[in-house]
């Protein structure tokens, strides 16, 4: 642990009887960082986050938030943190403004003009009853309550779920602003491109265990893509299998599928020696990252 870490999780374990929770997690988030928490659904992201917020308690290990104990000092932490749960409901009978007013008053007041500005940016009508809002609009109300008191730390569980692409862009801008204000963001996601786009560092979690903590730059350098190349005539896959960065190459008729990690230069030059009809590049799924990049199939569950 470094002095001044905004989040420090040490040997954190949460067990739920037979169900998997999280096992022996250790990581830190530095001030001003946008930290991604990446993993498939059910990997333990929500469990970790709810421990930070003290709605659940560790079975073993500890979590420190803003230098304070997540359980003992939870009230002080909550004053300085904005939290968006992964799954939630709002009070259906209230309007969006009522809901925000209730939470704002529990916080002893918030930056009202800022809240109004956010509502405008997200094109959200706060006068509507929550029961008549779409899923995306409810997500916006919940985002607003996390941001409206301008907290030092934002803990956001799958923040873009339900947002349409335009609103996702607005959300990314909001994260960029938080970063330039020197605030810290901890956000979870189950999709790689989102983490790529907004985060400085990422922790990857799978089946309750931490697989890696990487700088985004390093991760990108190692990122794996699958190329599907359609040639004018059949080409042997062997020609590509030995090139730097190629993990796998297989041919079927006049098509070749090549899995590549890192820079593409060598492979593109090799492809160019043949007549190429079509070329497609696919981003890897999370499972592909785990299987190929981090080797092995996890703990075999």
């Amino acid at each position: 642990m470094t002095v001044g870490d905004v989040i420090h999780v040490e040997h954190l374990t949460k067990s739920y009887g037979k169900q998997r929770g999280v096992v022996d997690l250790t990581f830190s988030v530095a001030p001003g960082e946008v930290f991604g928490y990446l993993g498939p659904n059910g990997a333990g992201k929500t469990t970790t986050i709810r421990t930070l917020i003290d709605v659940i308690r560790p079975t073993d290990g500890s979590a420190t938030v803003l230098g304070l104990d997540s359980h003992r000092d939870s009230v002080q932490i909550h004053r300085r943190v904005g939290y968006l749960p992964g799954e939630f409901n709002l009070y259906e009978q209230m309007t969006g403004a009522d809901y925000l007013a209730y939470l704002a008053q529990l916080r002893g007041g918030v930056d009202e003009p800022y809240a109004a500005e956010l509502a405008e940016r997200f094109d959200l009508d706060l006068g509507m009853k929550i029961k008549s809002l779409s899923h995306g609009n409810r997500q916006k109300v919940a985002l607003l309550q996390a941001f409206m008191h301008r907290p030092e730390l934002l803990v956001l569980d799958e923040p873009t779920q339900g947002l349409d692409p335009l609103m996702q862009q607005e959300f990314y801008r909001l994260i960029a602003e938080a970063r330039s204000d020197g605030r810290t963001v901890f956000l979870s996601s189950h999709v790689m491109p989102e983490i790529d786009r907004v985060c400085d560092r990422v922790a990857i979690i799978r089946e309750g265990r931490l697989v890696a903590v990487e700088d985004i730059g390093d991760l990108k350098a190692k990122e794996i893509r699958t190329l599907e190349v359609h040639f004018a005539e059949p080409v042997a896959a062997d020609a590509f299998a030995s090139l730097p960065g190629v993990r796998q190459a297989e041919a079927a008729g006049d098509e070749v599928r090549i899995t590549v990690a890192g820079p593409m230069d060598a492979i593109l030059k090799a492809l160019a020696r043949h007549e190429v009809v079509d070329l497609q590049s696919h981003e890897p799924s999370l499972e592909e990252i785990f299987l190929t990049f981090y080797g092995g199939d996890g703990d075999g569950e």
Partner: protein
Amino acid sequence: MASELTLRRPMLRTTFRRTIRDQRRALVWWAIGLFAAGATYAPFYPSIKENAETLQQYMESMPEFLSDAFLGASRDFTSPAGYLNTELFNFFAPILLLLYAIGAGARAIAGEEERQTLDVLLATPTTRRRVVLEKFGAMAVGAALLCVVLWVSIPLTGPPFELTPSLWDLAAACLMSFLLAMAFGGVALAVGCATGRRGLAIGVTAGFAAAAYLVDLLTPAIESIDWLQYLSPLHYYLDAEPMMNGLGVGGSLVLAAIAVVGLAYALVAFERRDLAA
């Protein structure tokens, strides 16, 4: 316009106020129900009084536990006080108040938890203890309101039918009904706080109330187990008969103690527990 958003609402300043605001419509209906319960008995009073002798004989001819159930220990149901004691306070009023309080107690925490509204609320600088206390307070205000409505329903509707009991004794009966409601509301709150399951809290508490009623009704007739009646919270309510005897201080204290123990257990259990996702 952006600058015109105000996030101040007097009725949403605290969880206590918000909970009262949440149930404002339901409370109006409950109040109408309680008023109707009180008002309905008045028109029947003259005919009961006229046929007092016949009815009394008929009731007395039943087995003791049944006449206890219908008449109460005092065996008086022809005076205004006796009539209200037997018909209203030994039957309809406690049932309505228990329904309200058990619902409110179970909903307080477990209802929010099941609807998944609790994570955001508890991520504000509020303690769990405070949320439970304010919810308990809101339940007390609701129950008190209903008991006041019950109290005023009799002087407002009784006089044309000569149903004019002592308003002090009536107030004592309403107060004990309130304490009874808070006792079972406290139990429902405790079960809800311990388990996070609203349906379970309602079921367990309603079952407990039904068992408590039967125990108080049946065990006094059987000498070897007649002490069991003292284990029934309802005993301390039904045995007091405040319409005739004024406020039963001992019974009231027992009922209040049950409510406080329920609240205390709720606070401890909720503080320690993981919340459902």
